[in-house]
């Protein structure tokens, strides 16, 4: 709208302009309101977790509960066992869910223009919405029943294995859906060009399509990994927790989100500081993964050389 000095003298239009400005301010305030908790969380995590992040934070494990004001040598301890546990659980879960999810995404996108493909897509969507606590009770119940039947050892219910299975079950639908979406974005022309050159379909998919969709696939994988790293509820009844480091796939294992929950609600200052330190680390990792997936997406145009 061009600026015309006369307009300001007409009351009605001035009111409309005012409303426009107000709307702009109000919607901007909404953004600010949403970002205040984010800022508060970061500030609190730094303020309360800083006490724990010292040299021992990444190498020591759970200290005895104590209050530095009461006990003279109250050890700060660290979350080494939890970091290791999360790495192992997420690595195992990713190892299972990434290949499975990508292959399923390939199926739906490349071979799935039929009833099976449509139902896989629909049900995978359904699976992304299953609350994670339900997945936790599924894995616990399954392994307890297998244990009662004698097929597996009952102690396996609380182990890195069940924890990884629970996380995979959460990750697989996410990876499958994001992979399918990423593959769908690859232009048909690319596939047709490869097929016209005589490349068999499976090699087209493996060599050409997957490479072109690389950034979307990586983003989907990162998203699923970030989600798995932050899950707590299913791990309470599968991974169980462990003050020691990784003891084997059939033994309970600690995880960072779990210790945030368990130590955070205690009144012991050294445990609370560890919980906040872990929270800070987790939030930073999630932040890094978000940034990484954005960067990967932005560099889409330089990988594969596909122009739209």
């Amino acid at each position, binding site marked *: 709208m061009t600026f015309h000095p006369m307009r300001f003298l007409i009351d009605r239009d001035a009111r409309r302009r005012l409303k426009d400005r107000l709307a702009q301010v109000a919607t901007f305030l909404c953004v600010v309101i949403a970002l205040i908790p984010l800022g508060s969380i970061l500030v609190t995590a730094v303020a309360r977790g800083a006490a724990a992040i010292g040299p021992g934070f990444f190498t020591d494990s759970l200290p*005895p509960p104590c209050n530095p004001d009461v006990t003279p040598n109250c050890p700060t301890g660290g979350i080494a066992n939890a970091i290791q546990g999360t790495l192992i659980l997420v690595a195992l879960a990713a190892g299972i869910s990434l290949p499975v999810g990508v292959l399923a995404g390939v199926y739906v996108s490349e071979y799935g223009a039929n009833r099976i493909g449509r139902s896989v897509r629909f049900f995978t969507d359904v699976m992304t919405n299953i609350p994670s606590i339900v997945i936790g009770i599924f894995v616990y119940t399954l392994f307890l029943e297998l244990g009662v039947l004698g097929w597996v050892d009952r102690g396996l219910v609380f182990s890195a294995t069940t924890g990884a299975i629970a996380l995979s079950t959460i990750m697989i639908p996410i990876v499958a859906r994001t992979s399918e979406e990423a593959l769908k974005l690859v232009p048909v022309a690319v596939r047709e060009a490869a097929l016209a050159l005589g490349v068999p379909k499976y090699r087209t998919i493996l060599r050409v399509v997957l490479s072109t969709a690389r950034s979307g696939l990586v983003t989907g994988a990162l998203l699923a990994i970030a989600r798995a790293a932050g899950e707590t509820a299913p791990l309470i009844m599968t991974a169980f927790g462990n003050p020691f480091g990784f003891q084997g796939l059939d033994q309970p294992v600690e995880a960072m989100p779990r210790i945030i929950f368990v130590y955070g609600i205690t009144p012991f200052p050294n445990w609370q500081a560890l919980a906040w330190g872990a929270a800070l680390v987790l939030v930073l990792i999630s932040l890094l993964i978000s940034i990484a997936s954005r960067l990967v997406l932005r560099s889409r145009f330089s990988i594969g050389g596909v122009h739209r």
Partner: protein
Amino acid sequence: MNRRTLYIAIGAVAVVAVIIGAGALTGWFGGGPPPITLVGAGATFPYPLISKWSIEYHARTGVQINYQSIGSGGGIQQITAKTVDFGASDAPLTATERAAAPGLLHIPETLGAVTFVYNLPSIASGLNLTGSVIADIFLCRITRWNHANIATLNPSRSLPDRDIFVVHRSDGSGTTFVWTDYLSKLSPTWASQVGKGKSVNWPCGLGAKGNEGVAGVVAGNPYAAGYVELAYAEIQRMTYGAVKNAAGNFVLPSLNSTAAAAVAAILPNGEDSWTNVSIVNAPGALSYPIASFTYLLVYRELNVFGASMTQVKAKALVDFVWWVVHDGQAFSSALLYPPLPASVLGADERTIGLITFNGQALR
């Protein structure tokens, strides 16, 4: 180096890092045979002490005791399901629970006091209280701190005119069992309206998870009141009340008053029913009225676990329990858990002697 090589390199480094990390902490690299690990679950009541034992025992023997404090209810259920190697509970097994887990022994490993903690800015420890007043507070019949019933017990204190913020347990807890056991004995209204148990229908108040959770909420909220085991209150320098005992004295929970409560205790054999065991409202001038033993729950015949329990592991479990009731008691007092009385120690030794693996005694 192009991007694909970069990704592969990152992936490889990550995998190697995970493997090295896993190896270092499991002793795969030349540390000898992997350490023996025992998994336990249960009561939060003795958790500070068990946590200490876990660290000390590991330093002495290399055996790794992984104890998760999920509450007495959880301890009983998981040892019944045999998903853990031993359980822990402050509430003895009920008849139903005994029937579901035949052969489970009660081995008291320590005892402690349940305190009435409060967060009143201007009031130090030692607020005088009686069982019926506490019951009324948890029934929400007394809702303000300066209520006449509390004031008459504490003429020298100026109580704030504020609502009492009641905190209780949200999980199945042996501490709740002890607390409600006491309140049922001292308040007929409580006994008929709420009763005793690991989990009850609380008339009011907020639920928190574990002794830790209750202590955390009370510590974080002025004018809150709850019940926690003495160690939790002491570690946090929380203020707690002096409760009137059976002899009519207002007693603060402490090492001595808790130990005094256990003096006259007559305990059954480890393999029998402990359903009616209670040292609540114990006689004695110095006894603290809300005290309790807490029990390790171990199967008498350890081959019930199947393939995962080996002779070596069974022996390690029995050795741990033996150490706990003997050398482990040296760490109790510092955390305000009284050492086991000699009579209880003797009974424990007898019970531990009953534990077998494939019929062979392990001690």
